[in-house]
């Protein structure tokens, strides 16, 4: 009977739970789903990470390639993030060129990487004006159950921390770069941006970490990205119902709490991956 009610009147179904201050999956309004993280699972990539926030599963793989640095910034390399939402993750995505949600997510990740300075592009330069690294960060969603942006950011950050690039030297006589695959170094991660997503339900109620059903019924979505110095790297609210100052402040404080939890999780996983060696 409940399943029938949920399909026929999804809004009323969710409202009946919100009246009791909880949600259909038993969580409180301010509770995040269980987040699990696994790194280094893709051996062919220079760095990889798999994140699960509840059912939402996102995988990030990092490959480093060599290229010429940009003409206007000869001492900088490139970081190219790409978010892919294949038809595998949800029935709403059809095969073909990336849709708007994937492209908007890619642009968001690119803006966060640039704004938070998680990696200094100068660190990716090998020989000024001649050779630099291009980090291709491919973020693929394997199971879409809401809260895509948070999962993508955690996967990206963990994969960057896990990434080990080989050492490159330029042979003085032949001017050909020589890659030493045995000797690898980790990347220098300066900041740790972590996101927290919220939705506004019925123009008034704020819900943290939405599932896909909750997202489809929401009237607005907000993603707040903070770093460890409590600075905001992004406040992404692409339209929807307007927010008052207090609600915004509430989101920001929840985001800073979330940042501490996730940062601890990432450090723990990276540490445990190192110790067996």
């Amino acid at each position, binding site marked *: 009977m409940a399943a029938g009610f949920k399909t026929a009147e999804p809004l009323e179904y969710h409202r009946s739970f919100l009246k009791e201050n909880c949600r259909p999956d038993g969580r409180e309004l301010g509770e995040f789903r269980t987040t699990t993280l696994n790194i280094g699972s893709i051996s062919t990539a220079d760095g990889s990470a798999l994140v699960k926030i509840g059912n939402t599963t996102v995988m990030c793989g990092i490959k480093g390639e060599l290229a010429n640095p940009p003409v206007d910034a000869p001492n900088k390399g490139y970081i190219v993030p790409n978010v892919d939402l294949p038809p595998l993750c949800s029935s709403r995505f059809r095969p073909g060129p990336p849709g*708007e*949600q994937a*492209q*908007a997510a*890619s*642009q*968001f990740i*690119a*803006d966060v990487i*640039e*704004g*938070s*300075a998680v990696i200094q592009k100068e660190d990716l330069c090998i020989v000024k004006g001649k050779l630099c690294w291009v980090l291709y960060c491919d973020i693929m969603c394997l199971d879409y159950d809401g809260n895509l942006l948070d999962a993508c950011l955690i996967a990206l950050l963990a994969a960057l921390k896990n990434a080990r690039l080989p050492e490159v030297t330029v042979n003085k006589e032949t001017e050909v770069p020589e890659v030493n695959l045995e000797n690898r170094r980790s990347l220098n991660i300066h900041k740790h941006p972590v996101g927290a997503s919220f939705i506004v339900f019925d123009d008034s109620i704020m819900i943290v970490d939405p599932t896909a059903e909750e997202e489809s019924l929401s*009237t*607005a979505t*907000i993603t707040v990205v903070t*770093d460890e110095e*409590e*600075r*905001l*790297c*992004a*406040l*992404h*609210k*692409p*339209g*929807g*119902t*307007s*927010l*008052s*100052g207090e609600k*915004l*402040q509430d989101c*920001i404080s929840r985001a800073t709490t979330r940042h501490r939890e996730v940062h601890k999780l990432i450090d723990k996983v990276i540490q445990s991956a190192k110790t067996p060696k």
Partner: protein
Amino acid sequence: MDVCGSSSPTLREFGCEQNLLSRPDGSSSFVQGDTSVLAGVYGPAEVKVSKEIYDRATLEVVVQPKVGLPSVRERAREQCVRETCEASLLSTLHPRSSLTLVLQVVHDDGSLLSCFLNSACMALMDAGLPMSCLFAGVTCAIDTDGQVITDPNAAQEKESRALMTFAIDSTERRVMMSSTRGSFTVHELQQCIAVSQKASDKIFQFYRDSVRRSQGLRWFPRQIGDESRDGTDVRDDPEHH
């Protein structure tokens, strides 16, 4: 850290023209300093069955850059503009219909996203689409000294360490849309929101004046903040005849 000294935000001189294109149901051209955007609205019109929504209108936003094909950056902007418009349009009055908003960049000299929002709002008004509120786009940049600059031009945007664009609604002056680049503190964010809300008052007054005078296609070359607004009607103006 220095804070924005003046209490009233300075916006570049802006101008607007409505109903300038013959084919779209509504059109507008919005100019902020040197940044200029042309918007056209078609709708409510027939919608493809695959895209129709049973109880509301389907809004599609297309952003055309000045040069080249639309890229990932334009898609992200389309999403921001589309969701802001959807929140303010009463789309349930036109179920199973399509609304198309096309934004053409004529010149980009900074604050492009806020120019998109302003021209979109004027074009939707010109098309006569029912809206629950108007919205105004304001861009703020925080430069390396910590000063807040409203409505930055392209050079100021490049030098800034953070850039934020907000869409403010006309009924309660709250933040409808926020798109940021760069890192900033919570205090700076609140400052920029306060500054944007003040700036939006001037933009809404400008919309009102502009629509009132839309019979004569007038530019507003004076700086906003002029006290010489005396509420005369265009019909009383002798040069209008």
